[in-house]
């Protein structure tokens, strides 16, 4: 029943989409002053149909309706309800349906929110957005229909990958999709504004909310993914430069640049081409993310689906969209009124321009590292693996100029700033950060020449962003986000510098000494829980004068047979103690990995600060002053 409902409502949504494409195209060419009432009506019908379709899939998951092939492949009656629901988007078909749902809801919200805008601009936005929606509808109906039925009906499902049974991961894809799909609105709107020629400060104010919102969702989405990898994969790190992680980072760089560029457009009515190109690029990168992840072209721990025909569809669709946007850009370039004002070297505009170039550099490094292996494999059959050393060596040295620049760039004035008289505050802050860095660096033995300026500058930037809370004239949201960013960089650097790990095979009762700490394996308890068997170990870590217990776990799932390691992490304000163990097949030995990771929690907290700053900017109305 729910299968038919879900399936046919998608067809109705497709018809609505085709109708809207033609109608908006025709109306955009006529000189209608008002938006036809039908647009809101048909769009809301479409949104409702897609919502119905999505929830009929959710319902199928909840009642474990195994006549549905997607449910059969990805669910199981023994699974907790929460993961039955999150299982809806934990798979290829369901995740696309979620993409589609967010696409249509966003368009609907956009229509309600842009009443004051020009009619032609609105029509064109509907047109481009509906082209994207119809593309996804075709994709779902032709290659990945979530409502395929099975007969005879199996009595039990094949289960969900237990690695995906994690609260952070259950909400990670929806949040990330909100970010990705938000960029589709920016894409459609910027193409529409290019054609209708209304690109300028008024449009910037209107689109800025969407940019901010997508950016906040993308930031939080990436954070959740990182948290999932840290707690669930048990590798003891927060970023692995895995291709699938990279594809979410690339649009983030682009969107961060766009976020700053839109502000210039709003205040100074310039950087119009930057805005358009960044909008197009951001969306293309979000779409390529979907292509790379869903087509199985990448080799990664995250790739779930392997189906070249799907890859072919997304690839063609992606290139049609890019081609379309390039054509529109080149043929409407003359419509951009070049109100080029004189730009002075020492001004906020220049600062944002420099920021953009840095973002583009970071983006290129990650882009090359992610797709060059694919290119090389096709071109001459050789295979290379690009790992963390590549990214670290290319990105970290460039952090030095970036940090210097970020310490003064944001406080420059619009149009033209003067070189101020020598500022003693800055000197004091710099000396303090030198002192702090000295104290920090004497505590570590592996100090490379590069880490000295990095630590000094990151602490300097941190102090400057704190100082800005009291003296700078910029908006509070900007202060929070910039403070969060400097805190993030500082935490990552110190974490990298001071992390320490030890690895050993231990039996129950064994003790190992590591870095003045004694790690003791006290016991291992075996227990049957819900849908897995649990081996819970009890470790005791004794420091000089204190001790604490850690209880890492190994879970053995039966449907399908998978063994996962749940690390136990003791988190304090200053450090994480991370312990994970694995079963070795013979003689009662366990492989134990213990890691000391300073400031882990600050990596999460600082990212929340970054996102919160953006969110505050969306909510607050009087932000416009700055």
């Amino acid at each position, binding site marked *: 029943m729910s299968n038919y409902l879900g399936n046919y409502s998608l067809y109705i949504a497709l018809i609505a989409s085709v109708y809207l494409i033609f109608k908006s195209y025709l109306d955009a060419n006529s000189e209608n002053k008002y938006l036809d009432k039908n647009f809101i009506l048909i769009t809301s019908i479409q949104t409702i149909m897609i919502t119905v379709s999505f929830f009929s899939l959710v319902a199928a998951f909840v009642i474990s309706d195994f006549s549905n092939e997607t449910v059969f492949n990805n669910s199981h009656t023994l699974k907790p309800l929460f993961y039955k629901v999150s299982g809806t988007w934990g798979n290829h078909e369901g995740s696309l349906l979620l993409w589609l749902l967010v696409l249509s809801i966003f368009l609907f919200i956009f229509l309600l929110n842009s009443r004051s805008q020009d009619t032609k601009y609105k029509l064109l936005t509907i047109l481009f957005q509906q082209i994207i929606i119809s593309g996804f509808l075709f994709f779902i109906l032709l290659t990945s229909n979530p409502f395929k039925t099975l007969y005879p009906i199996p009595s039990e499902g094949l289960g969900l990958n237990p690695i995906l049974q994690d609260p952070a991961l259950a909400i990670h894809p929806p949040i990330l999709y909100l970010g990705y799909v938000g960029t589709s609105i920016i894409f459609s709107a910027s193409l529409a504004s290019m054609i209708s020629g209304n690109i300028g400060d008024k449009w910037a104010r209107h689109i800025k909310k969407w940019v901010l919102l997508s950016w906040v969702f993308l930031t939080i989405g990436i954070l959740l993914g990182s948290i999932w990898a840290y707690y669930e994969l048990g*590798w003891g790190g927060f970023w692995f430069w895995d291709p699938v992680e990279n594809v979410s980072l690339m649009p983030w760089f682009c969107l961060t640049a766009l976020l700053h560029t839109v502000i210039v457009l709003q205040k100074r009515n310039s950087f119009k081409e930057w805005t358009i190109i960044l909008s197009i690029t951001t969306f293309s990168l979000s779409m390529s993310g979907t*292509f790379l992840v869903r*087509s*199985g*072209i990448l*080799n990664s721990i995250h790739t779930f689906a*392997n189906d*070249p025909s799907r*890859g*072919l569809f997304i*690839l063609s669709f992606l*290139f049609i969209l*890019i*081609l379309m946007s*390039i054509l529109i850009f*080149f043929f409407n*370039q003359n419509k951009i009124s070049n109100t080029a004002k004189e730009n002075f070297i020492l001004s906020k505009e220049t600062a944002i321009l420099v920021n953009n170039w840095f973002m583009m550099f970071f983006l290129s490094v990650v882009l090359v590292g992610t797709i060059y292996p*694919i*290119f090389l*494999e*096709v*071109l001459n059959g*050789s*295979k*290379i*693996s690009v*790992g963390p*050393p590549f990214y670290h060596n290319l990105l970290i040295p460039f952090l030095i100029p970036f940090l210097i620049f970020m310490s003064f760039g944001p406080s420059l004035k619009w149009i033209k700033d003067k070189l101020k008289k020598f500022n003693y505050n800055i000197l004091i802050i710099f000396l303090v950060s030198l002192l702090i860095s000295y104290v920090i660096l004497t505590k570590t033995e592996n100090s490379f020449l590069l880490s000295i300026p990095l630590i000094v500058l990151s602490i300097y930037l941190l102090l400057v962003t704190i100082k800005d809370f009291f003296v700078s004239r910029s908006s509070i949201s900007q202060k929070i986000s910039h403070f969060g960013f400097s805190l993030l960089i500082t935490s990552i650097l110190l974490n990298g510098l001071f992390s320490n790990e*030890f*690895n*050993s*095979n231990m039996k129950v009762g064994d003790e190992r000494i590591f870095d003045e700490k004694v790690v003791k394996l006290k016991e291992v308890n075996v227990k049957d829980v819900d849908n897995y068997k649990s081996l819970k170990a009890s470790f005791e870590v004794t420091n000089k004068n204190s001790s604490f217990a850690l209880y890492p776990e190994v879970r053995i799932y039966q449907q399908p047979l998978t063994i996962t390691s749940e690390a136990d992490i003791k988190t304090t304000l200053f450090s994480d103690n991370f312990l994970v163990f694995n079963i*070795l*097949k013979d003689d009662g030995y366990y*492989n134990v990995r213990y890691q000391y990771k300073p400031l882990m929690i600050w990596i999460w907290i600082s990212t929340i600060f970054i996102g919160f700053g953006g969110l505050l900017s969306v909510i607050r109305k009087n932000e416009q002053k700055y």
Partner: protein
Amino acid sequence: MSKNIKFLGLLLTLIIIFIILLKGLNVSKDYSNEKLKSKIDISLNAKKLFSDEIINISDLFDKNSPSVVNIWASWCAPCREEHQFLMKLKDMNINIIGINYKDSPKNAKNFLNSLGNPYSEVITDNDGTKSIEFGAIGVPETFIISGKTNEIIKKYIGPLTSENLIEIKNLLEENA
């Protein structure tokens, strides 16, 4: 005019990227390469991990039977997963020559001291050049190399699994 050139240039780039990605879709993801029966030059000089003595790699090979070469690093997470299987190979009396790829000797020694040393000999490869001579593209990789002809009999990219162990044993026996 220059606008058209820019446009055409961009279009051409896009088409090339499209074709490459299209081809990329059909590239097989099977990484054990049977065709790689190339001969390699193993007469390289390299330093031992534990004794700082410089030796010629070819001295480590048995001239009459095939040898197993494993390229690893202490910083590589999959190497850690693979380690237990290397220990099993050792228990099966199979000699493994380890090449320690771009690693600090201290970390490498710690790794082996805490997890156990499956290798009959470990040589260091600080700059990665020795591994390149073997045709390695990352860590971990495992080669089975014929002692007589210096040809690669089999190459495993990525961590070994328990299924590979029997295969390796059989290959060694067949080619002995």
